[in-house]
């Protein structure tokens, strides 16, 4: 029972972590919470669904396709909604409001075009189960967990081993100084949104396969945001840890306390962490964060 709970918690936490990384990545550079991230995830789920069913493509193609779709959407989003603000040196609060607008726009766009219908993915990976000493985990969960780890590790290596990664890290430290040293800000910010979008596309296709694709998938990204805040917004290792901690906490509360008051615990944990450590578990201290 304990093992099963831990494995389930890890599987749920893995998805939270993948989504939380997207929030943190954008926050680390632009210091605002990109609430449109959830909508990009939602559209990633739809993209994956349509590539699989309407285009009849194979699963790897759909996986790549939804990552590309997420990346393109992320970059477009930045061009249209955030760059004009950045050029005018707007405060992070206005970025956040713009992000909310984008989120509402995209969600309603889906309502208007595809409707509120629930789309269920075909069973690409089958219904097989892997047993780990008495506990079981679905093959999809295992694959999602493994692929998410690969993606997050890949992102980490990209940020620390490449020149573009160095540019992103420089920007997250101080954008003005970075530009003085020759970093092309527009290109770097675009890259950040592209990466966050690709991760969103990946989360989207996994969420869609696990549950289904529908316009208000957004609520689950609320939890991912909570995970990012617990881990410390702007910190990638923090987002991963926050996601896993939240996933485990929720599962243990559901099993050993009560499934109905699970969310009470999640949000209490958020409040407690913020009271004790205002920057989250691994956040850096920065003035004026919204």
């Amino acid at each position, binding site marked *: *029972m304990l093992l*099963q*709970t831990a494995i*389930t*918690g890890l*599987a*749920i936490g893995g998805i939270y972590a993948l989504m939380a990384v997207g929030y943190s990545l954008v926050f680390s550079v632009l210091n605002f*919470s990109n*609430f449109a991230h959830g909508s990009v995830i939602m559209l990633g789920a739809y993209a994956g669904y349509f590539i699989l069913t309407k285009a009849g493509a194979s699963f790897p193609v759909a996986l790549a396709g939804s990552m590309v779709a997420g990346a393109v959407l992320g970059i477009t989003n930045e061009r249209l909604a955030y760059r004009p603000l950045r050029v005018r040196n707007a405060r992070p609060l206005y970025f*956040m409001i713009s992000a*909310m607008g984008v989120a*509402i726009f995209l*969600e309603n766009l889906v*309502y208007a075009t595809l409707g*509120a219908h*629930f789309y*269920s993915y*075909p*069973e690409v990976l089958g*219904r097989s*189960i892997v*047993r780990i000493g008495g506990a*079981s*985990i*679905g093959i*999809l*969960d295992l694959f999602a967990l493994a692929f998410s780890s690969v993606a997050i590790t890949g992102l980490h290596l990209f940020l620390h081993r490449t020149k573009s990664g160095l540019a992103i890290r420089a920007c997250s430290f101080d954008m003005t100084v970075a530009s003085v040293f020759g970093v092309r800000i527009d290109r770097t910010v675009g890259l950040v949104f592209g990466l966050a979008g690709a991760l969103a596309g990946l989360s989207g296709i996994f969420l869609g396969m696990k*549950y*289904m694709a529908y316009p*208000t998938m*957004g*609520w*689950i990204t*609320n939890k991912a*945001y*909570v995970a990012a*805040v617990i881990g410390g*917004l702007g910190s990638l290792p923090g987002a991963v840890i926050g996601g896993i901690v939240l996933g485990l906490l*929720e*599962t243990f509360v*559901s*099993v050993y306390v009560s*499934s*109905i008051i*699970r969310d009470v615990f999640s949000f209490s944990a*958020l*409040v407690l962490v*913020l009271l004790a450590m*205002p920057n989250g578990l691994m956040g850096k201290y920065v003035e*004026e*964060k*919204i």
Partner: protein
Amino acid sequence: MKRLLAAAMVLCLLGFQLCGCGGGQKPGSEAKTPEEPKDPEVIKIGHAVALTGDASIWGQSESNALKMWVNKVNDQGGIDGKKIQLVTYDTRADSVEAVNVAKRMIEQDKVVAIIGAAQSGVTIAMTAVTEPAKIPLISTTATNPEVTVKDGVVRPHTFRVCFIDPFQGTVAAQFASTKLGAKTAAVLYDVGSDYSSWLAQYFIEAFEKMGGTVLGKEAFRTGELDYRAMLGKLKEGKPDVVFIPTAQKEAALAMKQARDLGYEGKFLGGDNWGSPDIIELGGSAVEGGYFVNLASLEDPDIQDFIAEYRAEYGSDPVLPNPVMAIDALIVLVEAIKKAGSTDGGAIAKAIEEIKDLEALTGKITYDPATHNPLNKPAIIQQIKDGQFIYVEKYVTS
């Protein structure tokens, strides 16, 4: 603190969005104009039905079926020689409209009784007019217990021909115990829905009465996506059946995840499963699941009716409303005959005394304390090869 504030703001915002998608009301077309015969040789029965709006697929079919059946009764001599005249009005499944319709039927058309409505909320609204006027009202498919009993007191002139929602829990429990040979069960229900909570409660009571053991009961809130924590706990005791009395979306997801966790027993549900969505959403995981339903096109007892309906209208009736409306008419005809009068109070009293009346869907006996039909047969259906198949008609003991 600002971050916290931001998080709170966002949650509020998303919350508003979730609530903000209500549907608009379509203006309905006017129903046929009332005729004015003061013919004492005619017995007028009102029929309040949704002929337009979202519920009209069922409503149209119900109206057709009832007209056909009234003609049949009239051809066989009517009620003690008097012909039945049906007065049909459109409610658009709207409470306000239905109240107006009920008023018009009672005050202008002078109906002796009303059949309808199909929706619990609409029927409850209509009782505000029918009860003071002492006009018997027989609902077709209003399954909420409060339709006939308010605050523990039965509404004297209000009846129904369908079973109440929670009764499905009893049917499912007895079916699991007697037909599936289940000794142990687990229940996963939606705490945000009265329907689901009551079904769960009735299931547990009935299953324990049959000598079974309920190993666990877990709840979630409407809209939940991940059931693995709860299912992992329920799975521990390896229950023979898992009862999931929820809407099709939640049920499909829960079944998928239960299979992913390696649960191999059977699934059971209520009539909310009866939407093709469940097969699309649940895929192979929902295969073999059983659920309780009000009516089925494959019910052997209604084959003659279906053939007549097809011959008359060239299509299948949209169940369950048509057969329920006919049951209501049969109950009413029997009651008027027995009462020997068209007085509302006398008819209501006669309905209370109905016992083992052969209606279309099975035998009807009224419970005078609740005005619900007792032990009404229910249909058990199964999901097989991506289709809903008829398993049997189950009568509870």
